[in-house]
């Protein structure tokens, strides 16, 4: 599965794109994030406070409970600051 990072999430993780094998047990975004946090201390730090993390699944805004079964692309990022 393709995971994208933007903003300070990207800065801290050190890359904007990763292709990751997601375990079958990871049903929703929260499960995916828990899986990432279990892999590496950096993820654990970035995703410690999920209130500052926004998520898009297949380029549509989603939340931690959104199912990821049909996801091709999941993006994790801070609140948006355009304009």
């Amino acid at each position, binding site marked *: 599965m393709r995971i994208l990072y*933007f903003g*300070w999430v990207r800065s801290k993780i050190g890359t904007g794109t990763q292709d990751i094998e997601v375990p079958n047990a990871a049903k929703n975004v929260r499960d995916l994030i828990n899986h990432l946090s279990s892999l590496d201390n950096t993820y654990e730090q970035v995703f410690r406070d999920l209130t500052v993390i926004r998520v898009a699944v297949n380029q*549509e805004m989603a939340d931690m409970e959104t199912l990821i079964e049909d996801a091709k692309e999941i993006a994790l990022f801070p609140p948006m*600051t*355009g304009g």
Partner: protein
Amino acid sequence: MIRVQEEDFDAGKEIRALTRGKKRIGGVASFIGLVRESTNNETISSLTLEHYPGMTEKILEQIEKDARERWSLHEVLVIHRIGRMEPGEQIVLVVTTSAHREAALKSCQFLIDKLKTGAPFWKQEDTPKGSHWVTERPDDINASERWDTETKAECARFNHGSGDLTKAS
């Protein structure tokens, strides 16, 4: 119409192109966002904007669609720049056109309010003390959310010339 680009834009040229020969337009509202030289008493040497290619365009098109459902609009243009910009440079242009001024002005404000916190852009500011990512402003969240509590009936009050618009080709 939505454009996400690195290049600067010429607001006057864009407005002329948008309105040329459209003699049913009575009002053109526009907003240009500029890089300021300081925020919160901190000097800004440059601003770098990153975005989520693909999703940005989808979201901006949806915001334009939402605006068109609320007001009777003729042409709509949003240009959002990405990449590195210096103080004084233009970041974003929103232009809305309608038979009457109220729809143009309100929808222009709606579009800029919505894209501030609803479109996948992230700003990084470079200052003499280093770079940092910009955090979202509570005022920007409020400005976006007030449109959701405002009923569409309220908007319809300002929504002149919809009869005319229906007849437009």
